[in-house]
């Protein structure tokens, strides 16, 4: 996956990064380990969002709701059921995937902006229930001090667990994108009508990708419990969804590793800025405006353009002649 995004030397760079990630706990202070854990799981969340957004062309505006529901399902399973915490970590992602299926079935009838706005409204309903149901979800306090299994309770082990699960999930997502299913998905993004004509079941593919994305968002949510042993309703508030969207955009939403990079940049920046000032949304907003105006393809997209500029231009020329047909109006 590194090779595709960073060229021939990508494989070496990628291996070095992974080795370094495994060595970090040996010499970095505790705070940075915590920070990197958060970056990893948020990056996984952003990558899972990029599956429907960048590769599927679906306006997944409220992705955080699956993250939050995954985390809450795992937390509630652990604190209320009395079963092993591992069961909770399995239940979390599946609960998120199930919610994604239900919301997908409702929203999939609509396209583009209508889809996104309906999803935001359904997600807000879930949020308000979590926010108000004090006796069950703890309301606006959330749930704190969730017991995690002994073996991953120390900070370094929690870090290794997060790293391992994140890498496995990224690998799985990469395989999905490069499978025939992934190709069909990108075909649907570029031209849904034509994809339908050649026999691809458009709605079914879109629904499947939504469920997959929901599942991995749930994985990220469960990882958050491992790292932070707490959940709170802000995890499924719509502002977080848009922040994750910014991460995808900043890193490059047509690249595989872009969202991870975007998450790393934004979370590091937040930690850095909060050392100086209480104001965080102002710099974030300005950063976003700069990205929207000057880096519409994101950091990795920009690097790729520089690396394969010529190839991309040729490909674009081919694409343009290929697509030189009246665009079908979306309804």
């Amino acid at each position, binding site marked *: 996956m590194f090779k595709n995004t960073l060229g021939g030397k990508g494989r070496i760079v990628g291996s070095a990064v992974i080795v370094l990630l495994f060595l970090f706990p040996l010499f970095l202070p505790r705070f940075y380990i915590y920070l990197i854990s958060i970056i990893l799981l948020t990056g996984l969340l952003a990558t899972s969002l990029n599956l429907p957004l960048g590769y599927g062309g679906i306006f997944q505006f409220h992705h955080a709701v699956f993250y939050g529901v995954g985390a809450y399902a795992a937390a509630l399973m652990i604190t209320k059921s009395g079963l092993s915490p591992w069961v909770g970590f399995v239940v979390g992602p599946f609960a998120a995937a199930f919610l994604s299926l239900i919301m997908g079935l409702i929203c999939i009838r609509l396209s583009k902006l209508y889809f996104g706005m*309906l999803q935001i*409204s359904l997600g807000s309903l879930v949020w308000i229930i979590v926010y108000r*149901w004090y006796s069950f979800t703890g309301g606006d306090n959330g749930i704190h001090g969730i017991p995690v299994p002994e073996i991953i309770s120390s900070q370094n082990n929690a870090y290794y667990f997060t790293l391992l699960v994140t890498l496995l999930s990224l690998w799985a997502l990469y395989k999905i994108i490069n499978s025939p299913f992934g190709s069909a998905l990108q075909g649907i993004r570029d031209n849904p009508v034509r994809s339908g004509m050649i026999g691809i079941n458009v709605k079914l593919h879109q629904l499947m990708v939504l469920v997959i994305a929901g599942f991995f968002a749930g994985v990220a949510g469960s990882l958050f419990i491992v790292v932070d042993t707490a959940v709170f309703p802000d995890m499924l508030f719509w502002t977080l969804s848009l922040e994750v969207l910014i991460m995808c955009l900043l890193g490059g939403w047509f690249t595989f590793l872009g969202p991870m990079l975007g998450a790393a940049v934004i979370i590091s920046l937040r930690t850095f800025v909060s050392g100086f000032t209480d104001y965080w949304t102002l710099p974030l907003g300005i950063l976003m405006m700069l990205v929207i105006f000057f880096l519409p393809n994101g950091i990795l997209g920009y690097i790729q353009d520089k690396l394969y500029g010529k190839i991309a231009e040729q490909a674009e020329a081919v694409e343009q002649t290929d697509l030189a047909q009246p665009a079908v109006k979306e309804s």
Partner: protein
Amino acid sequence: MDLIYTIFSPKLMSQIFVGLSRTVILFIVASGLSLILGVLRIPNIWHGSLYMVGAFMTFTISGAIGGGSLGFWMALFLAPLGVAFVSLIAERSFFQHLYEREHIMLLLLTFAFSLVFGDLVKMVWGMEYKSVPVPRVFQGSVHLFGGLPFPLYNVFLLGIGPIVAVALWLIVNKTKIGKISRAAAVDREMVGAVGINVSWVFAFVFMIGCLLAGLGGALVAPTVNVSLGMDHTLIMEAFLIVIIGGLGNIWGALLGALIFGLAQSLGILIWPQFGIVFPYAAVIVVLLLRPTGLLKSTW
């Protein structure tokens, strides 16, 4: 007669009136949002921040002119204009360059603006709650039906709602610029081809929409604690109203606001803890039955 009294108990009636005055605020904000969505196709998340800015401006202006009735009326007039001015500058310097891009970029740009303004409001007005006094004319309350008191200011709100609705309808349907903007919503290039400067038409529509957000904020200021974060809940409600009404349809915004406001106030009567869930549930029911909104969308 007894039957009527048990069905329309004073408590229920007063909840309905509370819901209706909430409806007016929601309608004013949502109609602006709907106008912008219908003509410019911008899902304007910034709208909530402008509503908040309108409320804070009302606080400052009415305080600066002595806090009396005059101050309030001046604020009611100046705050929306101030908001409209800010929005015009933003539209001319940022938004107009992005109309050709994807919706998602515009959405994120408006979100960026709402992030920036969230912090700007924090810098200018601080973190504390602000309260705006109700103007003297509207202090006190009237007694409805079973003798339950109903604040006079809410009666004033109930009067304002229809006025705004009719004024907006007149602007959109009867004035030249309204007709041009409706045409531009359908086919921008064609309108440009007959020699109209579409860019400024869009700026005008955007400004009117944001003015309505400021007006909503100014009107709501005396009834609530003006505080940070009032943008986040309101923008979500306004979006839902616009969706269930039909994107870009002003009467749809009115209908949606009615459903939302009444579901909220009556829901509290039925189940106090989860009263706030009812409007969201109502939205879902509407969308399951009519996924593209109750009335015809202009898209």
